[in-house]
């Protein structure tokens, strides 16, 4: 259609409904379709996808559901999960952040360099770890402030700002690390934050859970959260309502980068070295995860828990493919397709909602 019909876009459909449950469909089948449609509308496509994924891999590869693997997946999930929380907040505000991968790499290199330097210089373990972690967080803070400044005050489009920042942070990471992984990260750091566990649950998972609670409260129960949704939904209306748009927007990018830095510190513990090439796939994966979890690409809509669920889907998909030995290249293709599918399904949901 050549027309740009602005009026009632969500109700404008041209083909007849495909699967409208009516009296004629009898019994269980109709009930199942009806239940599926209602679930789809209430929570989106994600729970259905997650369930399908578990059943699929559970059947063709029994190891998928083994205790060890579940432990593994939950730990793996924390990194992408934390980054996705930040990405989701930026998306809700109407922007996005392509620099989360670079932030992870720079954080990792800086934290590792500080830690090994402190240990070599004779500092105590506690001092080395504290300074290393603080240094990593500082990286997140600085990157976030730079992104926020450029987007919110200089009004440069987030695409350009964060793409450029991604290049800058990777460049800096390679410079600091001198092109090679930074070794000399204390083993205790790796043991505690990388592979450690508490009450049978991996340490990183605890960190992620705390962050999830904090971020959920922030988005659902504070003025800031409301303002983020309002700015994502209609920036002009937000401004006319007396909201300081630049302050909120800048803070959104700071939060995203700090969360990426936290994930970077934990990943450093996991691989027990500072890796300048870490996290290259995080920007795409986190956006895919958030959108799969129901965060609207245009802003103004979505829930953090959904976004984390989307991250779970991405991680489980990768894990399942690893178990059945799908090649890495193919995995990348699958993740790309998943992102596009997520966006299409996101829109399909509106269409179905308008019909029922």
């Amino acid at each position: 259609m050549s027309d740009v019909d602005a009026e009632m876009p969500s109700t404008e459909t041209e083909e007849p409904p495909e699967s409208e449950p009516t009296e004629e469909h009898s019994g269980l089948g109709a009930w199942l379709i009806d239940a599926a449609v209602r679930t789809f509308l209430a929570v989106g496509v994600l729970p259905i996808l997650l369930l399908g994924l578990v059943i699929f891999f559970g059947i063709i590869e029994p190891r998928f559901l083994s205790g060890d693997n579940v432990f593994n997946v939950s730990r793996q999930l924390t990194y992408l999960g934390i980054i996705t929380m930040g990405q989701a907040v930026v998306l809700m505000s109407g922007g996005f952040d392509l620099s989360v991968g670079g932030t992870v790499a720079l954080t990792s290199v800086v934290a590792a360099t500080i830690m090994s330097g402190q240990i070599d210089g004779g500092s105590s373990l506690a001092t080395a770890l504290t300074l290393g972690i603080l240094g990593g967080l500082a990286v997140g803070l600085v990157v976030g402030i730079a992104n926020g400044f450029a987007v919110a005050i200089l009004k440069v489009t987030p695409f350009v700002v964060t793409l450029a920042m991604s290049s800058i942070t990777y460049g800096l990471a390679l410079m600091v690390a001198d092109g090679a992984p930074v070794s000399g990260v204390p083993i205790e750091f790796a043991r505690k934050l990388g592979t450690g566990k508490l009450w049978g649950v991996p340490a990183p998972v605890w960190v992620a859970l705390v962050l999830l609670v904090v971020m959920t409260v922030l988005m659902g129960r504070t003025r800031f959260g409301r303002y983020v949704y309002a700015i994502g939904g209609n920036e002009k209306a937000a401004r006319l309502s007396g909201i300081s748009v630049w302050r909120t927007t800048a803070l959104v990018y700071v939060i995203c980068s700090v969360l990426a830095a936290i994930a970077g510190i934990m990943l450093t513990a996991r691989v027990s070295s500072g890796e300048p090439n870490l996290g290259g796939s995080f920007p795409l994966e986190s956006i895919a995860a958030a959108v799969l979890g129901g965060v609207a690409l245009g802003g103004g809509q979505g829930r953090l828990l959904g976004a984390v669920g989307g991250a779970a889907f991405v991680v489980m998909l990768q894990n399942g493919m690893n178990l059945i030995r799908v090649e890495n290249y193919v995995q990348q293709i699958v993740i790309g397709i998943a992102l596009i599918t997520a966006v299409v399904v996101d829109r399909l949901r509106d269409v179905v909602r308008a019909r029922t």
Partner: protein
Amino acid sequence: MLELKGITKRFPGVTALDAVDVEVKGGEVHVLLGENGAGKSTLAHVIVGSLQPDAGEFRFQGEEIRHASRHHARMLGIDAVFQEFSLVPAMTVQENLFLGREPSRFGFVDRQKIASGAREIFDRLGYAVDLKTPVASLSRGEQQVVEIAKALLIQPRLLVLDEPTSALTDAASERLFAIMDDLKAQGVGIIYITHRMAEIKRLGDSVTVLRDGRRVASRDVADVSDDDLIDMMAGRSIDDLYASDHARMRPGPVVLKADGLSTPDRRITDVSIEVRAGEIVGLAGIEGAGKATIGRACFGLEAISGGTVRIGEEVVRKPTPRRMLQRGLCYLPGDRRVEGLVLPRPVLENCSLASLSREGFSRIGFLRLRKERQAVAKMIDRLSVRTPSLNRAIALLSGGNQQKVILGRMLLRDVQVLILEEPTSGVDVTSRAEIYRLLRDLTEGGAAVVLISSDLPEVCGLADRAYVIVEGQVRSHLEGDALTDRAVIANMFQVDEVADVAS
């Protein structure tokens, strides 16, 4: 020409149209009348094929039609101009006109043909607009004209006009009416949706009144009075639309004063107005005269190159919406879709958005959700907003109800001065009356209201006094008995013998 029988359309939770019959003859103007949410828009969308009815019979020129799409309807000669525009902002006027049906020569777009075709249609409309400017830089009223031109281009046999004059100046409206007369003479059927009583008498041949998705009656316009129509629409009579029986307040101290205000783009130059507590002050003027710019400059939405804005005793150095709100100056934007509504968010969040930092709604940044909900529920009730729940996305409400929610957003604050730009554009009669009464209540409570409106009866009926704005300057100030439609028009169009005309 058009015969609808038993048209029914259901949406989740509501029956938008319930067995509606409508008959429109060629060469007549058939008015669709009803409050917002009565089903007028749904019916219009059914007619142009963008919605499919669930039941009913649709005959066009004697043939049973099953529209596949808007496109299909266009092929049959049915087109519409809706309130929401279908223009591409970045494209020029002429590109928009021919979008999707560009004339071509040897497979290339024939620019000359586009230019001449566009020129011809605008000449016919009697409207001067640079065909090569991008639509984005036109005012809402001008965009409306482009939209109408686009519909005329296919030489429709049945044309649906959904409140086409809500964004037009009186002069532009008159030109549109002349074109409608032309079309009628050619045998074109016109379905006309409006909220303006005067237009029904002026234009309509027959009228169908809808209420709650049902047809109340279809009549010849000549046989019914305004009161009859209002009674049919509302199911009760509104005797006093403008609530003018309220005692006019004795004005208090000056609360808002613009002194020698100018903007860098020279849309307004050296404008001075003052507004006192307890009064409603109108700003009248034709489209583009700058009356809206005055309000926007006071609220901090336009840069100021000269002059001052004073709230009470204080000169506000650099107005921004945030600063002005803190000083009790509130502003209701003219285009609620662009500057008012946060479409994906629920009614609740839309209503409380401007007052979250108020004591009571949040403490050290944390929301007090229960208090917020209670206060919003009370406001929704006071404004009689019709919504099934506070959690409903505001996008799903009708125009009048959306407007009331945005108004509520301001009223939840402590309002000293309320500037409203076109507050009743696209708002039904009942909601209008409610909004007017509310404004009166506000001034009785000691607040001041600045009413910027293209609806002359509104300004004259409601305002205690009015400034007429012409070419970015205050042309005159009318007060009391001197404030009449005719006097304002005479001033707007710079008729010299003002006194004669006004008398």
